[in-house]
């Protein structure tokens, strides 16, 4: 770390940020509105097609895929980024980080607090960033090996299948709220009773919507709709889990210690964000479906910059990091995902 000119790194990255934000405007507003529009068409179209399965089962398949796509767009490119405040500058009530709520079991406000603050501030700091391994997986030697880590690959698969519920439990710090675990020097900003209420309220609404209300509205097509909703949620869960794991848990991502990060400068913070994240190469449609979290490095450096700009600034960011000899961790989807799986398996054992 001593050979890196952190001040220069901060200056270069700040320059990228400021020059890009100065050009944010109509193009970005049009972009996010077009994504929201597509999401609505997918959601409404998907729900209608699910009910036409009795006419032609392929229509039901198309309905499942469209509804899954709608949920992915809502959670990734719209919800995640809007709740980061990337589009607050638009003053659009429907795209406001304070009020946005998404189509997932996790309550938006709880996520906003834990994700935006804990994860983005303390990225990959052991003991501070609860997102590192989600308290379920051992992904570095910084954690003591336990017997349960032996089958953590199965735990990972279960987490992926039920990802929306895992995120919901995790983001309200379920182990503190429900089990009563305590950590020194950490005070909850929101009362446990409020968090519990949000958890159950949002979760119940999601369950009722997908597994009671819409199936009942479909009348005799109850099972077509119920099973379609179940599969659409599964598609979304697997996709979001996979992309998020590729963003932070490839073999190349680093971990950090709290004592090393005390009084860190802006340049050191940028350094940690860059090394704690990894990108995925792909086509434009792929980046949109990942919510541009395929540019996880750029997202962690500039979390409130409109995501539509990450692809544009990526070469400049890479150049700024390379200038200081800092690795820019990127690769194709299969390369990065294989790396994630290897890491999960590797740390399953002592």
């Amino acid at each position, binding site marked *: 770390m001593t050979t890196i000119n952190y001040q220069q790194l901060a200056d270069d990255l700040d320059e990228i940020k400021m020059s890009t934000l100065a050009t944010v*405007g109509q193009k970005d*507003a049009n972009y996010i509105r077009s994504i929201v*529009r597509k999401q609505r068409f997918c959601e409404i179209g998907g729900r209608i097609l699910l009910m036409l399965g009795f006419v032609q089962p392929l229509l039901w398949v198309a309905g499942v895929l469209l509804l899954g796509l709608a949920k992915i767009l809502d959670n990734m490119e719209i919800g995640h980024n809007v709740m980061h405040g990337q589009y607050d500058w638009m003053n659009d009530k429907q795209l406001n980080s304070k009020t946005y709520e998404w189509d997932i079991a996790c309550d938006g406000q709880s996520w906003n607090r834990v994700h935006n603050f804990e994860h983005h501030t303390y990225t990959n700091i052991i003991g501070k960033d609860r997102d590192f391994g989600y308290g379920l997986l051992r992904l570095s030697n910084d954690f003591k090996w336990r017997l349960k880590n032996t089958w953590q690959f199965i735990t990972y698969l279960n987490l992926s299948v039920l990802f929306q519920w895992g995120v919901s439990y995790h983001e309200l710090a379920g182990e503190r709220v429900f089990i009563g675990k305590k950590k020194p020097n950490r005070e909850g900003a929101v009362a446990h009773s409020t968090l519990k209420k949000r958890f159950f309220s949002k979760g119940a609404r999601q369950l009722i919507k997908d597994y009671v209300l819409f199936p009942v509205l479909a009348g005799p097509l109850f099972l077509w709709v119920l099973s379609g909703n179940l599969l659409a949620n599964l598609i979304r869960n697997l996709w979001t889990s996979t992309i998020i794991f590729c963003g932070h848990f490839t073999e190349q991502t680093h971990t950090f210690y709290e004592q090393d990060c005390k009084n860190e400068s802006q340049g050191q913070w940028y350094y940690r964000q860059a090394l704690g994240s990894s990108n995925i190469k792909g086509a434009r449609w792929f980046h949109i479906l990942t919510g541009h979290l395929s540019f996880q490095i750029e997202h962690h450096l500039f979390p409130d910059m409109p995501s539509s700009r990450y692809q544009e600034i990526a070469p400049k960011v890479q150049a700024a990091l390379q200038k200081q000899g800092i690795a820019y961790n990127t690769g194709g989807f299969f390369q990065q995902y294989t790396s994630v799986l290897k890491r999960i398996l590797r740390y399953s054992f002592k």
Partner: protein
Amino acid sequence: MFIKALNQFSKLFLHHQSFAAYIEPIMQVFKPAWRAGFFSAKVIAVSPCSHDFLSVTLKPSKQWRSHIAGQHISLTVEVNGRLLTRVFTLASSPDYFKATGLVRLLIKTSSLGQFTGQLQQALSLQPRCNISPARGDFVFKSWHKPSVFVAGGSGITPMLAMLEQQLGNTNSPMQLLYFAKADAHQCTNELTALAKRFAHFSYSLLTRDALTPLTQHINLDAQPDIYCCGPSGFMQQIADFAKQHKLGYFQESFGLALPNLTDDSQFSVKINKDTHVVTSNDVLLSQFEAKKLPVQRGCGIGICHQCQCIKKSGVVRNLKTNQLSDTGEQLIQLCVSQAVSDLELQL
């Protein structure tokens, strides 16, 4: 009832405050200026007037209900992707709207203004904008008494609407005292036409330094009602005059008339991780702007809620209502909030 149920369904299961908000992106495919909670309005004409005034003529959508002369609307325009909102008083009458379907705004622009500085160009680029329902209680009160309208600068706009609407409804004398910089008076042709048409109407174009001998212009024996609109200092003088002579007085404020605070107490405001010091002799919005905190200024007088934020704890005084908040979490408008205790806010 059906709409209410639909909105409740949207709130619970579609994660939007109303069904209109949920379908907004789809509606905009067919009607680009369609926005949940707003009315759309077609931009008919945008004409610059003298001394940086801009006359804007709009044709509101059919759903927009008319106004009462003297009321204001929020005008929302998209400028480079940003929805900017400001409050303006309608300068045209309800009768004019009934006859033509149009409303007119007379806006004082500033080249440095975030909103008005870009308004002419923005409106010339987009065929439609958004407006709110008409609001405000600065309206004509009595046809049976003489009335004196006292306007300062752009405070002429509600007077124009009220005169146009009310002159035909009464025979009681109506008088306009219009204070502005020399030769900066607006709509003088309209005023001349009204004076020719209605014998019981007269007007005087005055400059600010002519404010002192107000008694020369007003017939106190007739005990007229005074209607005043203009800068707060200007209105204070007219209000004092009306009080002194026991005249009925009604006013419309452009800016918030702050109480004369003598309390320089300092309070800490915790915003996310940072703590800032504020005093109680100014509203929070101005102090946060001076500290370059990420706040959103809107109307500045507690109407448009653009500067709204979440108060997590502490007490503020709403300077518009003079009411103290409770100590818990609630939404507050920074532009009308004065710190009364230490605060924790979420911007």
